């Protein structure tokens, strides 16, 4: 009995960690795109993906989370990590520029939808939490004030989830997650309106290599791939702008 228990416990032990694993902490808006890129990456190394809002991931990294790379939805937090030494100096670059988009009830003309959310005719709008999510911050900038029509998800994916499950009438979220949702699952019909980028402060999405992975060859290799023209054109198709900073 004890021997069986011992064997059972032994089987439950974790397998030895693979040296070539790249653990990516990615902002929720970029997760579907990153999964696509991971498939395209010609390499024998593997990506391990954890996603949350940029602010949540940043807090985890500061508390010592074991990530190799951080793909944020802003440039502020990667800069802070680089300055504090948690990020590798000089490894930081802009991998995409995010586009904010509005999801509205099916058949709503985009111009009308924008007017509706502007003049309080919309009953409920889900956005990502402005405190932790850069896309939420941009959404708050569009709405002017965050009043009681606005419900906050933890990140863009959750904001979309509130809309996709029929619980909010509108959602101001990332174009990339909206596109992914429309292509992959069986979405409820909706109007998708990318917003004019002049309406909100640019969302420069930056990547940074984290100090604990400074000798991780695979992580560096992936960063090179991320900047390749092949990866960049895939990112553009996924719902981002390709603009040098």
């Amino acid at each position, binding site marked *: 009995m004890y021997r069986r228990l011992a064997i059972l416990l032994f089987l*439950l032990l974790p397998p030895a960690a693979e040296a070539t694993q790249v653990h990516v902490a990615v902002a929720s808006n970029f997760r579907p795109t990153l999964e696509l890129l991971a498939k395209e990456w010609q390499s024998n190394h593997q990506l391990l993906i*954890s996603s949350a809002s940029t602010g949540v991931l940043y807090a*985890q990294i500061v508390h010592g*989370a*074991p990530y190799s790379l951080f793909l944020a939805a802003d440039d502020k937090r990667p800069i802070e990590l680089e300055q504090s030494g948690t990020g590798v100096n000089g490894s930081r670059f802009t991998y995409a520029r995010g586009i904010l988009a509005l999801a509205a009830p099916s058949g709503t003309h985009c111009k009308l939808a924008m007017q509706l959310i502007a003049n309080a005719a919309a009953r409920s709008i889900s956005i990502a939490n402005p405190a932790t999510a850069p896309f939420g911050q941009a959404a708050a900038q569009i709405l002017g004030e965050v009043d009681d029509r606005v419900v906050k998800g933890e990140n863009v994916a959750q904001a979309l989830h509130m809309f996709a499950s029929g619980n909010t009438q509108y959602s101001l979220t990332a174009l990339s997650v909206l596109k992914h949702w429309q292509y992959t*699952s069986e979405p409820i019909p909706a109007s998708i309106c990318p917003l004019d980028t002049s309406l909100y402060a640019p969302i420069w999405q930056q990547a940074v290599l984290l100090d604990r992975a400074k000798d991780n060859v695979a992580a560096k290799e992936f960063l090179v791939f991320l900047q390749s023209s092949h990866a960049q054109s895939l990112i553009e198709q996924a719902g981002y702008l390709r603009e040098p900073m």
Partner: protein
Amino acid sequence: MNPDLTAIILTLKLATITTVILILVGTPLAWWLAHSQHRLRSVAEAFIALPLVLPPTVIGFYLLIVFAPSSLPGQWWQGLTGTQLAFSFSALVIGSVIYSLPFAVQPLKNTFAQLPHNLLEAAATMGCNRWDRIRNIIFPLSKRGFITAATLGFAHTVGEFGIVLMIGGNIPGETQVLSIALYDKVETLDYSGAHWLAAGLVIFSLIVLSALYASQRNTREGSLWG
């Protein structure tokens, strides 16, 4: 490996290890609570029961601070094991033991309190030493209490969410247990995947609790809590 399977194995591993520790730690603790007249007993009992009333975020917040590599306990752990405590599987085990402790201690304490003392005293007068009494009287009579404690501890660990979310960080294969994997699927709008996991957890919990209540029905003690 399939990510769902990874999450299932990780969850079972976490619950198994947590349950073993809960029984090892909970048994002497419950015995002391059942028999001690110490004036600090009520305080100790209150401490153990705290996870029942506190939001998981409170415990998660404190553990996050304690486990950080910059904190003293975090540094001790690093020096002792060479690995980091924050966002690791070991951190989840510690968090789970604290969070599930009342679920293991409470049934054990009630069982121990109901043990017939004259029997133990009689055994002692007949020359049974302490170990004899534990093995031949206390364990057989407390079997049901141990089963209840282990089952509740195990099931409660499987059902944990808030603390794991705060101290685990959603890392596949390391801290992404079933409840977190489900959260992740809902967030990424993978509803069919979410349905599978959610239904699986409902069925698992129903089976465990039904088995537990059925086993309780066969005895005179009617309540789950002993």
